[in-house]
């Protein structure tokens, strides 16, 4: 301490240690009743929290060595919202310039008032049907007009806009600025919910707020806000605090997201996902039409084949084949009737039948050509063939020995039936038959 004229000047440390002395002397051991909040449990094992009531708060440290001294509560059960009675000494923490209570004993004073009120409100709203799943409306995907109620400046809107921009879909985001904590927050939030609903511009109403303590987020447990959300004509999506925070506003909303970032992720699909999807669909489109055309081609080929099979031309060909067979049979039956020896040397024998067959085959091959003149050419061939057959019949007719007989020829048979081909075969007194075209006469060789 310096004396400068009449002034007494302390260093920061001096005055802080001086205050600490006074505090420790004045409050060596006191009892304080309050609600636990902002509780933290670092690795050291000590517990740090704030004791509070409606108007004030005091920091508290509960060292690990004292955790055994409790009543109706264990150190593990101590959490935010618990109403407790603590015993300890008040001291200063010079490094931070704050005063605090070093807790030596804790007693459970019953459920914290805030929590109790909250539980009562939840029960009341639940009975009124505010949380019913049945009244929750679907949220449009990729909304183009989005109303966002949040602090004008804050991590929440930052996070939200960042993700929205990354998603890359088309949108207009209209921010309805409002406090999100403090005395005015409740009134402002309700006002903005009502304003957005009056405008009816948006497709969806988003209410977001960054992380904070239980007290920071407590405004979202307000009955008035719950009421405004319940009455909102626009579907409401909330993203308040972090994953673990679950406020009444979240419970009334049509859809609850854990954080503002989650809301943006929920509202919009990723642009890249769509681009990929469109590419895949385009590929399928081409593949499917290709497959379809190939299948049509195949059935067309089958149809053409069937059509050919049923075509008059084809049937004609078949008829020709049958005709050819008939002609062949005719020859065979004629052959059996005409003595083979007589016609063996003649032109029109079996060999000529084979030639005929070849000709017919040629005709058939010609027929199979897809040519407009085909029918004509077939007709020609058929005509040629029929004159040919005709000629053949006439020639064969002329070869028939009986026809020769008509012209005045006769031949001689022995009684054995053998035909006499030479005069040397006959001797005097042989009985023979002379065959005329209209009958036979018996004779004796002289």
């Amino acid at each position: 301490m310096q004396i400068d004229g009449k002034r007494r000047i302390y260093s920061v440390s001096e005055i802080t240690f001086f205050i600490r002395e006074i505090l420790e002397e004045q409050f060596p051991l006191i009892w304080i009743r309050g609600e636990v909040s902002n509780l933290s449990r670092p690795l050291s094992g000590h517990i740090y929290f704030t004791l509070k009531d409606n108007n004030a708060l005091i920091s508290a440290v509960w060292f690990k060595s004292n955790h055994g001294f409790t009543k109706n509560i264990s150190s593990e059960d101590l959490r935010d919202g618990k109403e407790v009675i603590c015993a300890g000494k008040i001291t200063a923490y010079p490094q931070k310039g704050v005063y605090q209570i070093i807790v030596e004993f804790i007693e459970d004073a019953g459920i914290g008032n805030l929590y109790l009120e909250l539980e009562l409100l939840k029960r009341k709203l639940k009975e009124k049907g505010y949380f019913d799943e049945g009244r929750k409306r679907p949220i449009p995907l990729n909304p183009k007009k989005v109303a966002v109620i949040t602090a004008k400046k804050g991590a929440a809107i930052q996070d939200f806009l960042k993700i929205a921009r990354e998603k890359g879909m088309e949108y207009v985001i209209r921010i309805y600025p409002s406090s999100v904590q403090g005395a005015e927050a409740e009134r402002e939030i309700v006002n903005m919910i009502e304003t957005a609903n009056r405008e009816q511009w948006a497709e969806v109403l988003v209410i977001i707020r960054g992380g904070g303590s239980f007290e920071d987020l407590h405004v979202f447990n307000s009955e008035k806000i719950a009421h405004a959300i319940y009455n909102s004509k626009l579907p409401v999506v909330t993203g308040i605090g972090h994953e673990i925070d679950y406020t009444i506003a979240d419970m009334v909303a049509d859809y609850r997201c854990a954080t503002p970032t989650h809301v943006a992720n929920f509202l919009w699909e990723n642009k890249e996902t769509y681009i990929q999807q469109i590419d895949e669909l385009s590929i399928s489109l081409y593949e499917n039409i290709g497959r379809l055309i190939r299948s049509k081609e195949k059935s067309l080929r089958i149809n053409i084949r069937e059509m050919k099979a049923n075509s008059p031309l084809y049937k004609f060909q078949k008829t020709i084949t049958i005709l050819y067979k008939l002609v062949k049979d005719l020859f065979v039956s004629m052959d059996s009737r005409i003595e083979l020896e007589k016609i063996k040397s003649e032109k029109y024998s079996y060999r000529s039948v084979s030639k005929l067959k070849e000709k017919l085959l040629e005709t058939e091959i010609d027929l199979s050509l897809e040519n407009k003149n085909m029918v004509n050419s077939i007709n020609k061939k058929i005509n040629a063939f029929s004159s040919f057959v005709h000629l053949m019949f006439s020639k064969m007719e002329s070869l028939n020995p009986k026809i020769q007989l008509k012209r005045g020829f006769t031949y001689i048979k022995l009684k054995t039936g053998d035909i006499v081909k030479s005069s040397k075969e006959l001797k005097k007194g042989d009985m023979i038959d002379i065959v005329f075209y209209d009958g036979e006469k018996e004779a004796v060789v002289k």
Partner: protein
Amino acid sequence: MEDFDFEKSMNRLKEIVATLEDELLPLDRAMKLFEEGCLLANNLKKYINEAKQKVEMYSKEIIEDITMDGYDEREDLKEHS
């Protein structure tokens, strides 16, 4: 692209791709669907690539456009810490 309904067009495209899987579909109908599908795919991509984004601030008198740059992240973090 103002009145372009993205979701509807996307669903229509999926529907067309599924319909074209049926090889018994008459060819003229298939070709019509294929053309419609190509057009849809083009429009969908165009819509996605030309998507416009806008952020407005509501106030009692006017709705003012703001740019994303108006948000200073560090400042905001300070406010919330």
